[in-house]
């Protein structure tokens, strides 16, 4: 299944990159990674998780019950990790080019 790499998709993949997280954990981690700019709603989160699972970029990793609440954990697959690395490299490259474009202006400021 083709999936478009939006900012939300990228941030969810990034949130799951270091270790498995459950839904609420992903929301908190995305908030942290985006410096408070992206607050995922439950509907958006599960839409992204569904699409990432269908694309094979993340997979279910286990579940537990905490305070009577079911938590299902997700982790990034090898495909997901490769996609995340490629997207991060693309963003890095873009950032370098953007910085080069802005440098003369910044220097003059």
């Amino acid at each position, binding site marked *: 299944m083709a999936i478009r790499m939006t900012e939300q998709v990228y941030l969810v993949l990034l949130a799951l990159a270091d270790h*498995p997280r*459950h*839904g*609420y954990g992903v*929301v908190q981690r995305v908030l942290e990674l985006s410096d408070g700019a992206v607050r995922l*709603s*439950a*509907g*958006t*989160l*599960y*839409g992204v998780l*569904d*699409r990432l699972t269908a694309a094979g970029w993340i997979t*279910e*990793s*286990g*579940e*537990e*019950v*905490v*305070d*009577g*609440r*079911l*938590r*299902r*954990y997700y*982790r990034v697959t090898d495909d997901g990790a490769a996609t995340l690395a490629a997207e991060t490299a693309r963003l890095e490259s873009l950032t370098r080019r953007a910085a080069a474009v802005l440098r003369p202006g910044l220097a003059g400021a």
Partner: protein
Amino acid sequence: MSDDAFERSARRWMRAYPLWWRERRGGELLGVLEELADDGARRLDLRTGLSLVRGGWATRVRYRPPWHRVVLYRLGFTRLPAQFRWWAAQDIQGRFFPLREMTPSIGMLGVLIALPFMWGPGRAQFSWLSLLGPLALAALSFVPAMDRRLRRLAWERAFADRPSLSRLTDRPAPPAVPERLRPRRRSAARPGLARAAFVLGLGAFVLPVAAAVAPQRVDMVPCAVDDVAWCAESVVVAREPHVGGALVVWLALAVLAGAVVGARAARRVRRASLPEQPFRQLVATRVPWGSLTATGAIGAVALGEATGALVQLFAAPLAGLCVVGLGLVGGQLYGLRRRGDVDAWAGIDAWRVATSGGVLVDPPYRETIVSPAPPDPSRPTEGPVPG
């Protein structure tokens, strides 16, 4: 946080998601919603609720088969591919399936009926009575026997290797989630039947009167086109000074039919054996919206057609239906009264016994546990997350 009130609120919003999705991820989503909500929240906030509606409908669209496959499947030409089996299974088991299944037939009949109005030689004037055919076909899909037959045939067509309608054995095994069994809530028979008897009795009394005194009515006459024999059109005619003979005959036939179905219903109910229902809870309806709506509709039709505000069209047919329905409901009430165990009957039991002879034994309703429960050693608990 008031868990019960919040859970009810959240589950209402979560209905936007397809049933299979909720069965698989409902408990998990509910847990996230509870963690995201403010302490003490009694209901889901509107913004989160709307995000669930948007996400739920997006999920429905994402997992729905392409429309051309649905059309071919609906017409019975093809099976759906394996990845859409969940969709097909829940479609067949869902509410109003017979109506969905018969939509192509109803549509084709509608087109056939509409053709003479659009392109026929000497085009006929459109008559609302021409809609009776498709409407009758649609109504037929609500007959319990037809409902069961259509579902069984569709199931065999979709899953020829799995003919049992009661099991969805081909869905992937869901992960182990904590569940509890909850009884299915059913409306008690007596208050529902009493209300139905009142509404139908009201209709059987006021509608014939309205039909008799209505100042104008709809009639069918041949078209004013010489060379077309089959054409008919509806016209409005003034009331005859006497009560129409057709109305009397129609009501007499309805009384006869009501007596027959009532006697049969009473006999069936009296003789039926009521099985144990360990997973059922009988409840009284809080607000009888159906009865109130039906009473209002009957009152509006009777008043409108009796005063001439509406042309007499529905009062006479509805009067006959009310008389037959009163016989059916009266037969059920009489049969239950003779048995003496009316308080053990659900409305659905009385209806099914009276119309098809069988009682539905409710299976347990499986509910994912999201509120605190005693520890179960066979279930995952707090601790390290499996990798």
